[in-house]
């Protein structure tokens, strides 16, 4: 918990802390830290569990509207009870396990996946006083916790004893490993400029307004904007979202490593996917979008956690919008995109951020030079690399269409 930086704190800002203290106050002193931690865990689970439920509904509704159909609208008002109907359906479906499957690993894979995907939430600062665990190396913890998802995917593919599952798991692993590199490299510039791995201090570094009205969020600097875009693209791929959802590709690849999963285990895989998406979006908000900070000074009376939630929801809706818009990539396109396009750009962006940090003292007309050079360092490689890589592949002529 960081000490409050701003003098006047509204009652709403303090509300979560007051609620926690009201509950833990009922217990003897020595039990309070344990009860407080358990309450934080329960709040995270309940909050993101509900967010998961309504995210699936929002996704189906929005996809439906984009495809000119109503989406689920029969269960409850406007389909609002649909997630619970889905939950009951998943719970009551038969849980099939292939005859030759490795039963223990087959059971462990979805459990490990969900458990691991929840770990990242611990270090996200949801509000001024709302961070479950304050760590000096929080960013490193976040990505270390995320790497274990690869093991779960492998376990799912291998334990199913199905050649399609195993091949799809290897394909999914190749994707996850390839995109982890740009994901991590896109974060390094933020660590470089702020000089810390702690999420709360990264948010604190983005407080304040330049010229009185432009927030000092990293996304409003050239390297930050590029880093944010690169991070979000890699996050799309890491959370198996469209257009990088070919590990599951339900229409072409019979759901990949999930082929032999049914019932609630299948639902757990999807839960983990949405948790991963929420955690990575929360990390993007923390690293690039100013965390819980308000976009303008006069909006400061709205509690910090409301701003975090609003930014998180905008990013999540962006994920859904992208899914409705873009077609799925092929595996070779996916790999080429990661290794030949994203990785070089993230490395160049790191150099760009280093230059930005070194020229922090420049003022007056030199400021313009600083911006021009940084912008050129973002746009130039993007255009050159993009043109070079897509040369000869586009525009495509469809002879038989």
């Amino acid at each position: 918990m960081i000490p409050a930086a701003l003098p006047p704190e509204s009652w709403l800002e303090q509300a979560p802390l007051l609620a926690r203290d009201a509950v833990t106050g009922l217990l003897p002193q020595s039990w309070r830290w344990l009860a407080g931690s358990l309450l934080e865990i329960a709040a995270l689970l309940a909050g993101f569990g509900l967010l998961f439920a309504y995210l699936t509904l929002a996704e189906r509704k929005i996809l439906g509207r984009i495809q000119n159909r109503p989406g689920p609208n029969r269960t409850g008002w406007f389909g609002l009870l649909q997630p619970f109907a889905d939950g009951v359906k998943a719970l009551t479906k038969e849980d099939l396990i292939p005859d030759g499957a490795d039963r223990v690993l087959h059971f462990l894979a979805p459990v490990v996946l969900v458990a691991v995907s929840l770990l990242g939430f611990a270090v996200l600062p949801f509000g001024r006083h709302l961070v479950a665990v304050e760590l000096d190396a929080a960013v490193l913890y976040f990505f270390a916790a995320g790497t274990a998802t690869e093991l779960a995917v492998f376990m799912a593919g291998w334990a199913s004893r199905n050649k399609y599952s195993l091949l799809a798991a290897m394909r999914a692993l190749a994707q996850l490993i390839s995109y982890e590199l740009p994901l991590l490299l896109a974060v390094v510039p933020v660590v470089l400029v702020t000089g810390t791995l702690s999420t709360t201090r990264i948010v604190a570094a983005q407080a304040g307004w330049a010229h009185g009205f432009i927030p000092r969020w990293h996304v409003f600097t050239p390297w930050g904007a590029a880093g944010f875009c690169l991070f979000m693209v890699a996050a799309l791929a890491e959370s198996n979202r469209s257009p990088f959802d070919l590990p599951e590709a339900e229409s072409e690849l019979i759901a990949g490593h999930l082929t032999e999963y049914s019932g609630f285990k299948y639902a757990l895989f999807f839960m983990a996917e949405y948790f991963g998406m929420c955690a990575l979006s929360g990390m993007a908000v923390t690293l690039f979008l100013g965390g819980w900070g308000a976009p303008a000074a006069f909006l400061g009376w709205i509690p910090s956690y409301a701003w975090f939630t609003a930014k998180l929801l905008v990013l999540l809706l962006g994920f859904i919008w992208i899914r409705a818009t873009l077609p799925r990539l092929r595996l070779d396109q996916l790999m080429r995109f990661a290794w030949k396009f994203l990785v070089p750009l993230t490395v160049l962006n790191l150099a760009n951020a280093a230059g930005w940090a070194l020229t922090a003292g420049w003022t007056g007309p030199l400021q313009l030079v600083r911006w021009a050079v940084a912008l050129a360092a973002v746009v130039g490689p993007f255009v050159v690399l993009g043109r070079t890589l897509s040369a000869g592949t586009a525009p495509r002529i469809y002879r038989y269409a």
Partner: protein
Amino acid sequence: MTFTLLLLAVLILGSAAAAALRPNLIHSALLLVVSWLGVAGFYLWAGAEFVAFAQVLVYVGALSMVVLFAVLLTRQSRAELRVDAPAARRVVWAVLAGAAVGGVIGAAVLGTNWGPVAPSAPEVTVRGLGLQLMGAHGAALLVLGALLTSALLGAVVLAAPDRPRKEEGS
């Protein structure tokens, strides 16, 4: 504190022993990952946060994949994943090799002059670690970086096809 250490030791040694004894190679690899996680837990217990997370990132995230891919790429079928009980000769050699490694490490530990114990545990921050790495041990870091880069380039050269593939029609 001691009880936690005991639990961690049981986890690390138990999963390592199980990894050595399981007949199924994939199970052995996954149990090895559990053992590495236990080591990360030990680092956390010892207060070395950064090292613990780095251990998880490198060992659980990356090295486990190398091990699993190696197992899958070198076995033709599931039947070959089973490892039969080794012959007596191999057991003897394995014990001898293990004892030799243990002896070298034990001798190094016993031969080290530990010096006086600091009155309080030093506060180790990520910043301090980074400054140490880039300052006092900068040369070693650069050598490691060059080594890993050359390994990566070697892997690319090995994996790249000799001839450029024919362009697909259309």
